[in-house]
């Protein structure tokens, strides 16, 4: 044991000598001032002041990243880049941003090293972490979702991000396009005699041989879009106050009755698609009325269910295509 300790001490001493002195960054000098200051109030009620439209932006959650990309701002840092590339191919990254860690615990160090002029965060981050991020750069914190008004929250976030990045014009266009897409979709479904169709969207995952199913209630973003399309949300389970997501199992699907059922899976994550995998042989699943009638629709992979207007527009296309068949 003593020899071990001595070795450790020696190694430490050596390390100390090696790292001694030197800096990775020159000592600070006075920062310059620019005109055109932007002042915003975010969802936490904090005043965010920017010297000008933000260019170097880091996003800690994928929905704000998607909004940024739609607005034509390439983020310099994104949480879990690999995950984003797997789950959001509807709005692909146009550059190679730095990976800043997981969405739940983005790395402060990495974010700081990117020297951003704006950090986009959501209230899903612990308040203490947001407090720390404020020391690096102005932080715009938004509610990632609100079950009381899912589409309203999405456009509100888009507007805030647009103001911070000086792209309000682009945001206006995006909102118009999205509204047009919704109207167009609603008309297409009505023309196909699908208005008021009971519709249930869910995703599911397999963990240790067990299937969990997540219903998207009317409080979810997709649920909100479904209602705008004139569809009737068939879920009766209660969703959480932010994302409008519920939990259920295969049995719980028997309460849906005769509906149109849609889901998004992912080929890059085999556990995310129980509907054609683990459930294919399940008697409860196969005897569900909508499964027997073939009213189960797999929508294209890569539409991020919690994304922004672009993902939602692709979702509208997908739903219309599925139901017009």
């Amino acid at each position, binding site marked *: 044991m003593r020899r071990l300790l001595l070795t450790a001490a020696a190694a430490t001493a050596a390390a*100390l000598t090696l790292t001694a002195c030197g800096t990775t960054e020159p000592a600070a000098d006075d920062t310059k001032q620019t005109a055109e200051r932007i002042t915003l109030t975010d969802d936490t009620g904090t005043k965010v002041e920017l010297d000008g439209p933000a260019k170097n932006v880091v996003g800690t959650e994928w929905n704000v990243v998607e909004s940024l990309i739609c607005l034509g701002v390439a983020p310099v840092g994104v949480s879990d880049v690999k995950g984003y590339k797997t789950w959001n191919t509807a709005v692909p990254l146009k550059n190679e941003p730095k990976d800043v860690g997981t969405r739940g615990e983005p790395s402060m160090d990495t974010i700081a090293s990117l020297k951003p002029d704006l950090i986009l965060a959501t209230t899903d981050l612990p308040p203490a972490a947001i407090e720390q991020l404020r020391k690096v750069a102005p932080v715009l914190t938004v509610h990632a979702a609100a079950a009381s008004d899912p589409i309203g929250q999405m456009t509100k976030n888009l507007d805030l991000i647009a103001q911070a990045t000086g792209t309000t014009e682009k945001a206006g266009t995006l909102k118009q396009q999205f509204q047009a897409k919704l109207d167009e979709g609603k008309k297409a479904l009505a023309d196909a005699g699908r208005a008021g169709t009971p519709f249930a969207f869910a995703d599911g995952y397999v963990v240790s041989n067990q299937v969990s199913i997540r219903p998207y209630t009317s409080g979810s973003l997709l649920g909100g879009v479904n209602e705008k399309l004139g569809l009737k949300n068939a879920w009766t389970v209660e969703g959480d106050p932010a994302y409008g997501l519920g939990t259920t199992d295969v049995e719980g699907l028997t309460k849906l009755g005769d509906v149109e059922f849609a889901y998004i899976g992912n080929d890059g994550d085999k556990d995310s698609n129980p509907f054609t995998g683990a459930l294919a042989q399940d008697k409860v699943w196969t005897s569900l009325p909508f499964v027997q009638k073939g009213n189960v629709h797999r929508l294209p992979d890569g539409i991020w269910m919690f994304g922004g207007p672009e993902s939602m527009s692709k979702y509208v296309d997908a739903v219309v295509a599925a139901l017009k068949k």
Partner: protein
Amino acid sequence: MAVTATTPAITASAVRTRTGAAAVAAALVLLVAALAAVDITQGTAAVGAPEVWKALTGRSDPADSSVLIASRLPRMTAGLLVGALLGMAGAALQAVSRNVLASPDTLAVNAGSYFGLGIAAVTGVSLPLLASSGIAFAGGLAAAAVVLGLSGLGTGTVRLVLAGSALTLGLTALTEGLLLLFPQDTEGVYHWNQGSIAQHGFDGVLQVAPIGVVALIGLLLLARRIDALALGDDAARGLGVPVRSTRVTAVVLAALLSTAAVTLAGPIGFVGLCAPALVRPLARRFRGFTRTRGSLPVAGLTGAALVIGSDVLLRALVPSDVAVAVPTGVVTSLVGAVFLIVMAVRVRDTAGSTAPDRLRIRTRGVFLTTTAVLAVVLVGVIIAAVLVGDSKLLLGDVVNWAQGRAGRTVTFVLDTRVPRVLAALFAGAALALAGTLIQAVTRNPLAEPSILGVSGGAALGAVLLVTTVPLAGTWSVAGAAFAGAAGASVLVFGLAARGGFQQNRLVLVGFGVATGSAALVSLLIILTDPFNATKALTWLSGSTYGRNLTDVAPLAAVLAVGVAVAVMRRTELDLVSLDEDTPRLLGLSLGRGRFGFLALGVLLTATAVAAAGTIGFVGLVAPHAARALVGRQHARVVPVAVLLGAILVCTADLVGRTVIAPAQLGAGVMTAVIGTPYFLYLLVRSRR
């Protein structure tokens, strides 16, 4: 501490045992059947008792009958099977090790199986159930082999449980770490951690059941030899029983049983420990249950009743859609914890206090060298922790920062990194000191804040406050943690104090409270904030993420007080840790001193948990290691343990932050990964 299964007292009632035993067995079967019948009427589909009755009379709607056949019946069968398998595995392990604490949980069999499955999940290989069961078996058996190998077959039961608990913590942490590398899967952490009996059809049950049957037959064939082991190794050998091979075979078969359960439903905690414990008082009354052939099936039945009863309870108490999200294992842990605590208090504790560990007396020189070396290592670790991270810094940066002249990036990196390093340092030191105090007071080598449930109580208090008051401040979180820790300690030490901290009782009650509070923390997070993996990580496995200097302040204050008190009252600590009589002879008021030290230990634990979540292991490893290095004198143990604790957690935090950067692992996960091998090394070394 000799943890021995209580030898059954043969009384006059032994005469009518055969019929009595049969009656008890029949009553158990009835209970299980009734619970099972209730279970199939519960679930998310609108299939209740009337629909079940219609199905029985053949007038059922096809949709209802498919729910019954493909979902309810398999779930019910799986619950019964898993409970029975775990109950029998626990009974067998307790019989061969003559240890009431032995179980698939404490011998790391469950953790090993779980780890095997975790590796299989991470490598992304999609395996059929039986193949994954093979991997789980290999993992479980390997873990059991390591535990039994290290502790030495048949020697030292304490060592067995020490090694087993250590390996369990380490392996669970490793598995969690592995699963965390897959961000989309983090919500699965709870589900993986705590098993669930839900099934899709009978495939799983049908594939796993034969494994269980084979293992059960094996154990029944071996039953006579196992019974002989109860007489002691020498007596058994005298009867011509091959002690070693009997034990090895029985452990392999028990591992097979629990592997089958883990493969089917994930780790369902506490059943293996609890079911045999419930059978034991029966065995005292009915001789039929003292023999393995009788006790094994009864333990199986009891296990089945526990699992299916927990499932029934859960579905009766919470709305069906919420019940889906709560793993069965959480409920068995809660139910099991309550039972275990009640049992532990009622069971007569036969173990006296142990002889102090035989350790060489160290010279003053050894102490001074060790302390000096540790101090240097600590400084090195601190420097490394400050410099190394996602962005590497150099010492010049730190100098600039200290003088307030650093650039923006360096300033920020250090502003966030320094509080984390401090939180880790102080939490480690505080937990080590708390462990030292509690081990001294209870004279129990297993005593440790997290194993005794003090950390769990603190986490529960903090999580309760954080969930009800979203913007709770630092001091109020620390206060809530203290309230929780105090509540847990009053429960644990209060219940164990009857008859002066009897060794078995203390650890059993502590185990119960620890598991129960961890299950409650999981339950609270699942029910209030199901998608918040960060919160779960912080309170279930310790994390220094997002700490700032104000979070560290309460901890620093308490630590300073703690060290001062421990140093001032070092002689009293020495005396208290010696034995029951010496302090009394010297006229010391044992009760008050003990209470003071315990309260201090609880306070230290609570503030450490409030600052960095539940970090296990430190309070166990640091004092042990310190005593091994410098002897038993507290004047020496305290500084060395505190230094070791700080080094351990700080290193763990450093590694956790850097090894998969920019993603991060909780400090608690890394502490267990680093702590386990060291602790096992310590065990091996002390065998000589």
